Every structure is written in structure tokens, then in C-alpha cells.
């Protein structure tokens, strides 16, 4: 197979975006009424649904920690989410990996110390897959946790960035992500102080380029933060309207 051209001579990517452009983001909090908090988040064609329960009594007494809350993340990819149908078993390593990344990210962001002996459950469903699974999961989980009213240090906003033909590119889609030549860097930051909550890259990138790529990804995170903030405001206004009526 010949090398697929990921950036056209005009500087446009396969889906018509420019190098520093995010995909269209739409999100909504409180989409499931019975969950304590929930959110639906889509970035381009990647769609995620998150339900948050808790803080509640742990399912197993052995899970209870005396001084902080336990966070439990379950990640599930719907069989119809990919272009080729594929059903994954519960023990799929890829699923466990993503859920463990999400768990580690939020262990640092949630103020677990104020919920001792309790458990916070985050259930993530990937309904449609078009690249950037981890970033969308983290963003959607942030929104759902805010919706559930769980105390957090700050939002956690995640974004991916890559590097093609000497240009750093933002927010990789599935085609770009699956190309082996494109390094794929996922960054999650807490926007207020700019702390990095998660940094993950599994491919080769020259160290001199890392800074540029990081900078772009962080810029993307800040943009996503504004989007999430808007969604939270909309949800809060909704709630206020309901209360006043």
C-alpha cells in the first residue's frame, strides 16, 4: 500500500481540517436521569456516554479505604461503534488499559480525601469510534463528574496531537491515528494551574519537536476547557430553571 497522504499540498488534512484545528465538539451534561451524574460528549465522529454514580458505599467492603474514596472506572466499547463490527470481551486488555488511564487521571483530580470509605463509579460507553478514545473519555468523564457534584481540584481536559510532515497537528482522527508514521501524544491538563494530569505517547517523536507538539495539545485542552465550561453552565442554568418553576 502506498503511503497515504495525510496532509494535502494546500495544508488540509483528510477530513478537511487545518493542522491546528479541533474537530467539532458538542456535549451535554445530565443525559441519564437515574445516574448521579452523566454526560454525552462528541468530538467529530467519536461519541461517548458516561454515567457517574457515587460517592456511595463500596460494592465490596474490601475496596473501602479508610482515608479516601476509591475510584472505579469501567470502559466499554459498543459492538456497533467501529466500522467493522467487533464485540470485545470484558477482559480485553485495550479496555482495561483505557480504564486504568482514566482512573489514574482522576485519582489526582478528584478530592478523594473528603469521601472516605466510599466509592465513585465511572462507567464509560464508547458509542462511536473515530480516533481519540482516551481524550474523549477523559473530557466526558470530567463533565459527568461535575454533573454529579463531586468535588474536584479542577476540570481535567485532554487533547491529542501528532506530527506530520514537519507540522504539529491537533486532535487526530482515526485515519491519522492508525497511520504508523504519526506519533500520537495525549495530554490532559488541569487548566487553572496548567498542571499535567496525564501524558501519554507510545510512538517515536524527535525530542526537539516534543515541545511544539505539547504546546499545541495544551492549546487544544484550553479550548476544550471553554467548551466544557459552557456545557456546565448550560446544565446549571437548566437546573436553576427547573428549581424556580
Amino acid at each position, binding site marked *: 500500500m502506498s503511503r497515504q497522504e495525510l496532509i494535502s499540498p494546500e495544508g488540509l488534512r483528510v477530513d478537511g481540517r487545518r493542522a491546528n484545528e479541533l474537530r*467539532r465538539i*458538542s*456535549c*451535554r451534561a445530565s*443525559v*441519564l*436521569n*437515574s*445516574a448521579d451524574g*452523566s454526560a*454525552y460528549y*462528541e468530538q*467529530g*465522529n467519536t*461519541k461517548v*456516554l458516561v*454515567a457517574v*454514580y457515587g460517592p456511595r458505599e463500596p*460494592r465490596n467492603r474490601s475496596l473501602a479505604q479508610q482515608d479516601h474514596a476509591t475510584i*472505579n472506572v*469501567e470502559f*466499554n466499547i*459498543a*459492538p*456497533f*461503534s*467501529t*466500522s*467493522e*463490527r467487533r*464485540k470485545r470481551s*470484558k477482559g480485553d486488555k485495550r479496555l482495561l488499559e483505557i480504564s486504568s488511564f482514566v482512573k489514574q487521571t482522576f485519582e489526582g483530580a478528584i478530592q478523594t480525601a473528603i469521601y472516605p470509605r466510599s466509592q465513585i*463509579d465511572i*462507567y464509560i*460507553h464508547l*458509542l*462511536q*469510534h473515530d480516533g481519540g478514545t482516551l481524550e474523549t473519555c477523559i473530557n466526558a468523564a470530567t463533565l459527568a463528574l461535575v454533573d454529579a457534584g463531586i468535588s474536584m481540584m479542577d476540570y481535567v481536559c485532554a487533547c491529542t496531537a501528532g506530527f506530520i510532515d514537519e507540522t504539529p497537528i491537533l486532535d487526530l482522527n482515526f485515519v491519522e491515528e492508525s497511520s504508523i508514521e504519526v506519533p500520537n501524544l495525549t495530554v490532559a491538563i488541569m487548566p487553572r494551574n496548567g498542571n499535567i494530569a496525564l501524558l501519554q505517547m507510545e510512538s517515536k517523536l524527535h525530542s526537539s519537536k516534543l515541545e511544539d507538539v505539547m504546546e499545541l495539545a495544551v492549546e487544544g485542552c484550553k479550548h476544550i476547557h471553554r467548551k466544557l465550561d459552557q456545557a456546565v453552565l448550560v446544565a446549571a442554568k437548566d437546573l436553576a430553571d427547573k428549581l424556580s418553576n
Partner: protein
Amino acid sequence: MASLILSPAEQDFIIRGVEKGFRGDGRGSLDRREVTLRTGMISQANGSARCRIGSLGVGTDILVGVKAEVNTWAAGEPEECGTIVCNVECSPSAAQEFEGRGADEINVELTQLLDRIVGGEQSGLDLRKLCIIPRQAYWVLHIDALVLDVKGGVADALVWATRAALLATKLPRVVVESVTDDSGVARAEFDVVDDAEDQMGLEGARDLPLAATFNQIGRRYVVDASEQEEAVTQAKLTVAVSPKMEICAIQKGGMLKGFAPSLLSEITQTALRIAKEEFARFDALFAEASKHNGELDEEPSTGSTFLEPF
């Protein structure tokens, strides 16, 4: 199922209420809760639907995606038919005990139930139309259901959502042509037309059944039991009825009791009686859901209906 533990007093209250024709939420014994239906929220699937049966926005919530794939025929499979494969998964967001492998048992139960209702000829779908080239290639319809919330009456919501998803399913057109290879042997080959405009619905999808579950509580029964009512249910019977008023499948559930034969025939009669109303209700909801879609198609966006209040 979600284990709701009720006090003996509350159980007694529900049982006596049902026997006198009163239900906790003011419904009659044959009334269904509010149904919300949406279609077409998953653009990567050939058809999708979300159905919620409940009141005040809380209820059993099911998302179904239908995906069609071309399979090559292997010896031993039916020669001129396509197949339907059902798969139901309960999300831990429905109940905490569904975490990990906890939902396996209920997944099997619901998968088999769905398969019994829509998996074969009894569904009314024309499986022969799913054949592309006899003994060579055929369509497989994967029906994947995701149970997001359980608040009583999962089986009904599952069948309602599946019917909507299958009605909304569009298959790409397939061109079959005869090709002569080098040795001069003619064989059939096919090409899937990749054009969003050039698609067609499933043959016979209008004949798909709807299901109603009857829960025996005390000496009477109710349709579409709520979570509390389900907790005191002694036995239940799911009846799937087609629009032509045929019975497509019957399955009993519940561990505690059996049915008296007279009650059983009363239930099947009632199932047929309310079926007409149920189909009318479904059609109205489905038409509304499809209209919804049409509006969104105008926009270049992915047209998700998750963003709208559901």
C-alpha cells in the same frame, strides 16, 4: 435484575392495590408508562434506535444498533438466507451488580429472548432477501443492544427499540453481475454500492412483532410493571404479537409461581387485544422520531439525537 428490596408492608400494599385495580403511579392494570423513541443517533450503524419506557424521564433505557455485514457462505449454513445475530449487553450504569462479569446471566437471558422474537422467520423479516448470491455470500444483521438503565420491563423496551432500529435500518444496494474468468467459467460476483442515497429498507420490517410482558401480582396481572411491581412479581409472561395478530413467541419468567391455565389464556387474549393499541402508539412515536431525523439531515452535522433532551 436490579435487586430492589421492599419491606413486607410495601409489598402487601402493591399486591392489594393490583388486586383492586390500583397501581402506585395511577395507571390502569393494562396501561403502559410513557414511551420515548428516537432513531438514527449512531451514524456508523445501518440502523439505530433508543427507547425509554418510564415516567418523568426515569425508566428502562435501551440503545440498539443494527449493523449489516457481508458474510461468505460456508458449508452447512442455509443456502439462500441471510441471518440475524442478536446480542444484548447490560451496562453497569443500570445496576452496580452488572459490573465486570456480573451481567453475564441476564445478558444470556435477554439475548436468547430477543433471538427468539426477532432472530428467525417468525420475526416477519424476509431472510431470503438478505441473501446476496446463493451459496456464496449473504448479509448478517448484527443487532446489538445496550441496556443503559433498568427500571422494570426490560424485555418490552428491548423489543420496542429493536423494532424501531430495524425499521430504520437501511441496507446498501448490492449489484450482482456474472463474470467470466480466464478459464471461461462464469460465476457471480457482487459489488456493494457505496452511496448513502442508494439504500433500501429491510423487507418485511413492518411485520416485526412488539412484546408485552404481563406480571402476575397476587391474583391479578399488570402490563409493564415498574421496578417496585417487578420486585413483588411472582411470575411473568412475555408475549410477542405481530401486526397481523399472530403470536410470535411466548416465554414465561419468574421463579416463584406458575400460572393457572385459565389465567394463561386470559393473558394471551389480552395481549392480542392491547396489541392493536400498542402498534398504533409505536407507529406514532416512530413517525415522530423519523421526522426528527429528517430535520437534522438538512444540517451537515452528524445529526446526533443524544444532544437533545430525551
